[in-house]
C-alpha cells in the first residue's frame, strides 16, 4: 500500500502533504512551489494548463481560464452562488445535460471534472516528489459543504485517479494539525482568514469525534481586500504628491500590487517599512518615483474595519453553537492573513484567550489532511514513540578527556563503534570508563561503569586496535563492549536505568555543559595539545634512532634540540607556546623524514621492504603512567548504525 496524501483543495490555491517518519511534510509541486493555484486553462493550441502556467496566461485567455471552480462544485444552476458567478466570471457557466458546466475551448466540463484536472496535477507532482505511485488521498472541504458538494469533491478525486479515503472538514483538519484530537473534551474555534474568504467554525471534540457545531463567515473577505486597501492608499498618496493616477497604467499597477503585498508581509514583523518603486511611471517632465514610508500603525488604521468585520461572524457562530466565549478551550488560526499582529490581537481580545500558533497557517489544513491520511493508512497508530538519549555517552581517553561516541538527542535504538589504541608501549590492558554527559573532561561527567579488557599482545603504543562499541536499545539500556581486533578477546558491560539520573539531574548536567562550554573547550584544547606534543616527542625520538646513519648528526641536531625544547615546555599552561614548539619539531622532523626517503630511493629495491616496516612503526605514542587508551587521529574505523 502506498502513501495516502492529504490535499487542501482550495478556492484560490491548493496544497498537499504526506506523513513521513511520523511528521507531516508539505509536498512541493513540479515548479517547486508549496501551493498550486487552483486554475485550469486550455490555450489556443489546445494545450491543457494547470496551476502556475494557467495563471500566467489568464489575462490573454480569460474565456478559457477557469478559476474559483470550487464555488460551483456540487451546485445547481439555480443556486444563488452560481447565478452570481455567471455574471462575475469571465468564463462561461451554463446548464448542459442537466448539470452546471463551464465552457473551455469548444468543450463543456462539470466543475468536478475541472477540479479533477487540478487533482491530477497534484497527484502527478506528488508521485514525482515521493518517487512512488499515489492512488489514495484525504481531501478537505469547507465545513458548510452539503452532501452534494462533498460527493462532487469525491467524484473529482475519482476522475483524477485518486481513491478518496475520506472527505474531512477544513477546520477539523486544522485541529488535527495541532494534535487537538488527542484531548478528551474540547471546544475549538477555527478562525480561517485566507486570500479571498473568511470562515469561522465552532468544533466540539468528544470521544475522538469532532462535531461541527456551527459555521459562519464572509465569502468575500480575505487578504486580497487588505492588499486592495493598501494599494488604493498608495495610489491616493501618489496622486496627491505627483498629480498622476496610476490606476490606468497596468504595468505600474502590477508593481504596486507586488510592493503592497511585500509591505503588508513586512509589517507583520517590523514596525515600519518603506515602499520604494523607482520609475513607476513617467510624464512630460520625466520619470516619476514612488517612495513612501509606512508604519504598522498606519497600516492597521487602514485595515481596522476589515479586521473588525470578522468579529461579527465569530459572535454569530458562538451563538449558533450555543456556547459562550469563556467556554472556548482553543482557537486555531488558518490562512496567511492571520500572521498579521492586529488580527492575532483582535482574536485574542475577542475570545479572551491566546490563539494557537506554531503550524504554518497556509499549510495547516493540508497538514491535518495528511495526518488523517496517516491514521487511515496505519502510519500513526500506536506508534512506538522513539526516545532520545538526553546526554552524550562516551569513554575516558588519554589526558582525562571525555570522548563522545553517541551525541545527546540521538534517537534510540542506536549503536556506534570507534577504534582506539593504547597509550603506552607494551600496554596489555585498557580500562574503559563509560561516561555520560557533555562536559569535555571525564571528571566533570558521570561515570556509568568501568571494565577492563586485558590480554592485549605487547606492542608499540598506537598499534593495537581496540574496537569500542556502544549500543542503546529502545528501552535506554546501554551495552558497551571493547574488543581487541587482533585476538578477538572482548569484554562488555550493561548499564540499565540510564545511570539513574533524574530529570532534574539531567537538566542540570545539560545546563552545566552549556555554561562551561567555553572553559571546557580551552581545557580540552590544552590536554590535546599536550597529548599531541607527547606523541610527537615519542615519534621524533624513535625516528632519530631508526634513522641511524642514514641521517647525519648535523641534520639530527635541530630535531634533538626541538625535542629538548618541547620536553621542557610540555607541562606548561601556555597553549600557544606549546603549539609553536610542536609545530617547530614537526617541521624539523619532516625534513629528516624526507632525507630518509631520499636515501631509501637511492638504495637498492630489496631494501625498501624493511624501510616500509619501520615507517609503519612510527605511529607509536609516549608511555602514559595510567596506561589509558589514546584517542585518535588514529581512529581507523568509525561505524554507525541506527536500528
Amino acid at each position, binding site marked *: 500500500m502506498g502513501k495516502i496524501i492529504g490535499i487542501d483543495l482550495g478556492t484560490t490555491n491548493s496544497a498537499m502533504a504526506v506523513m513521513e517518519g511520523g511528521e507531516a511534510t508539505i509536498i512541493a509541486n513540479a515548479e517547486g512551489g508549496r501551493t498550486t493555484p487552483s486554475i485550469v486553462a486550455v490555450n489556443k493550441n489546445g494545450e491543457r494548463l494547470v496551476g502556475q502556467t494557467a495563471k500566467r496566461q489568464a489575462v490573454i485567455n480569460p474565456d478559457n481560464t477557469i478559476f474559483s471552480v470550487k464555488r460551483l462544485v456540487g451546485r445547481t444552476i439555480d443556486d444563488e452562488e452560481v447565478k452570481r458567478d455567471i455574471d462575475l466570471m469571465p468564463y462561461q457557466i451554463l446548464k448542459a445535460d442537466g448539470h452546471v458546466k463551464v465552457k473551455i475551448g469548444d468543450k463543456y466540463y462539470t466543475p468536478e471534472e475541472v477540479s479533477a484536472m487540478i487533482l491530477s496535477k497534484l497527484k502527478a507532482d506528488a508521485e514525482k516528489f515521493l*518517487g512512488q505511485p499515489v492512488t489514495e488521498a484525504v481531501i478537505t472541504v469547507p465545513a458548510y459543504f452539503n452532501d452534494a458538494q462533498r460527493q462532487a469533491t469525491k467524484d473529482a478525486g475519482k476522475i483524477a485517479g485518486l481513491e478518496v479515503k475520506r472527505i474531512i472538514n477544513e477546520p477539523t483538519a486544522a485541529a488535527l494539525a495541532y494534535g487537538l484530537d488527542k484531548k478528551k473534551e474540547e471546544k475549538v474555534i477555527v478562525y480561517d482568514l485566507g486570500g479571498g474568504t473568511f470562515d469561522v467554525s465552532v468544533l466540539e471534540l468528544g470521544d475522538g*469525534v469532532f462535531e461541527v457545531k456551527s459555521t459562519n463567515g464572509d465569502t468575500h473577505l480575505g487578504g486580497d481586500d487588505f492588499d486592495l486597501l493598501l494599494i488604493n492608499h498608495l495610489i491616493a498618496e501618489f496622486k496627491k504628491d505627483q498629480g498622476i493616477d496610476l490606476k490606468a497604467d497596468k504595468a505600474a499597477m502590477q508593481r504596486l500590487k507586488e510592493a503592497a503585498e511585500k509591505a503588508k508581509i513586512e509589517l507583520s514583523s517590523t514596525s515600519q517599512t518603506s515602499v520604494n518603486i523607482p520609475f513607476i511611471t513617467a510624464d512630460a517632465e520625466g520619470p516619476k518615483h514612488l517612495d513612501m514610508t509606512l508604519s504598522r500603525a498606519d497600516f492597521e488604521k487602514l485595515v481596522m474595519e476589515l479586521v473588525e468585520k470578522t468579529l461579527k461572524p465569530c459572535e454569530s457562530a458562538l451563538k449558533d453553537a450555543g456556547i459562550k466565549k469563556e467556554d472556548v478551550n482553543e482557537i486555531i488560526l488558518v490562512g496567511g492573513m492571520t500572521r498579521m499582529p492586529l488580527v492575532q490581537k483582535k482574536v485574542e481580545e475577542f475570545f479572551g484567550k491566546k490563539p494557537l500558533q506554531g503550524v504554518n497557517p497556509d499549510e495547516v489544513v493540508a497538514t491535518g489532511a495528511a495526518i488523517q491520511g496517516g491514521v487511515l493508512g496505519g502510519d500513526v497508530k500506536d506508534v512506538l514513540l522513539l526516545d532520545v538519549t538526553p546526554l552524550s555517552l562516551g569513554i575516558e581517553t588519554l589526558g582525562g578527556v571525555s570522548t563522545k561516541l553517541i551525541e545527546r538527542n540521538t534517537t534510540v535504538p542506536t549503536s556506534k563503534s570507534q577504534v582506539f589504541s593504547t597509550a603506552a608501549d607494551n600496554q596489555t590492558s585498557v580500562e574503559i570508563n563509560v561516561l555520560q554527559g557533555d562536559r569535555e573532561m571525564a571528571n566533570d561527567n558521570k561515570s556509568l561503569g568501568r571494565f577492563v579488557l586485558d590480554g592485549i599482545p605487547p606492542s608499540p603504543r598506537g598499534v593495537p586496535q581496540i574496537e569500542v562499541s556502544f549500543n542503546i536499545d529502545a528501552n535506554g539500556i546501554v551495552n558497551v563492549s571493547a574488543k581487541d581486533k587482533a585476538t578477538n578477546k572482548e569484554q562488555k558491560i550493561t548499564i540499565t536505568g540510564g545511570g539513574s539520573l533524574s530529570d532534574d539531574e539531567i537538566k542540570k548536567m545539560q545546563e552545566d555543559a552549556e555554561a562551561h562550554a567555553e572553559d571546557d573547550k580551552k581545557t580540552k584544547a590544552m590536554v590535546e595539545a599536550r597529548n599531541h606534543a607527547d606523541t610527537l616527542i615519542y615519534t621524533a625520538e624513535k625516528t632519530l634512532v631508526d634513522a641511524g646513519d642514514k641521517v647525519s648528526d648535523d641534520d639530527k641536531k635541530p630535531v634533538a634540540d626541538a625535542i629538548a625544547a618541547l620536553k621542557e615546555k610540555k607541562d606548561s599552561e601556555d597553549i600557544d607556546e606549546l603549539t609553536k614548539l610542536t609545530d617547530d619539531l614537526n617541521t624539523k622532523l619532516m625534513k629528516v623524514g624526507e632525507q630518509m626517503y631520499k636515501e631509501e630511493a637511492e638504495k637498492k629495491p630489496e631494501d625498501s621492504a624493511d624501510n616500509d616496516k619501520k615507517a609503519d612503526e612510527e605511529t607509536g605514542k609516549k608511555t602514559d603512567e595510567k596506561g589509558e587508551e589514546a584517542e585518535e587521529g588514529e581512529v581507523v574505523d568509525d561505524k554507525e548504525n541506527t536500528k
Partner: protein
Amino acid sequence: MKQNLNPNKPNKTSKPSGTKKPQPSQVDPAQLRIAELTNSLQLLQAEFENFKKRQNEEQMSTMLRAKEIVLSEMLPALDNFDLAATHLPAELEGNSWAQGMVYVGQQLTQKLDELGITKLNPINQNFDHNIHEAIEHVQSDKPEGIITEVITPGYQIGDRVVRPARVKVSGGTNPATQ
C-alpha cells in the same frame, strides 16, 4: 455534523455489506504481531530510503536554490537599474557619469550571465506560458500572441524559471476583454 476520524469506527453513511462474513480463522496472535511489525518495519525502511534519496537530490539542488533565493531578492533592484537606463534623459546622453551608471547596469547583467543566470527579454517573441506572464492583452498590428512590450524581464537558472518575464501580448486587432 459529526466527523468520525477513527478508522475502526464505520462512518454513518457507510452501507451494510450484503454478503455474509466468513468465520475468522484461528491465527496465532504472536504470528499476527510478527507480520504486523515486519510490515511496519518494511514501510519505515522504505520511507527512510526514499527520504535519503530525496535528501541527496535536495543537497545537490541546494546550491541552485541558494542562487535562486539571492537572485529573487535582488530582482527589484535589477529591474530598477534597467528602468533607470531606459529613462535616461536626452540631455544626459553625453554625460559621462550617466554613461558610467549604464555601464554598471551592463556589468550586473554580465555577472548574472557568468553565474549561469539567463535574462529573458522576449520582445517580439511568441508568448510562452512556461517563461512569460501576461499582464495585459493589447490591441496591436503585430500578430496575435506576439509580445509587444516587456514590463519586467524574466530570469532563468538553467531551465528553472526564477521569475517569468512580465509582458504585454498582442491580441491583434481584437484583444480579449479584461
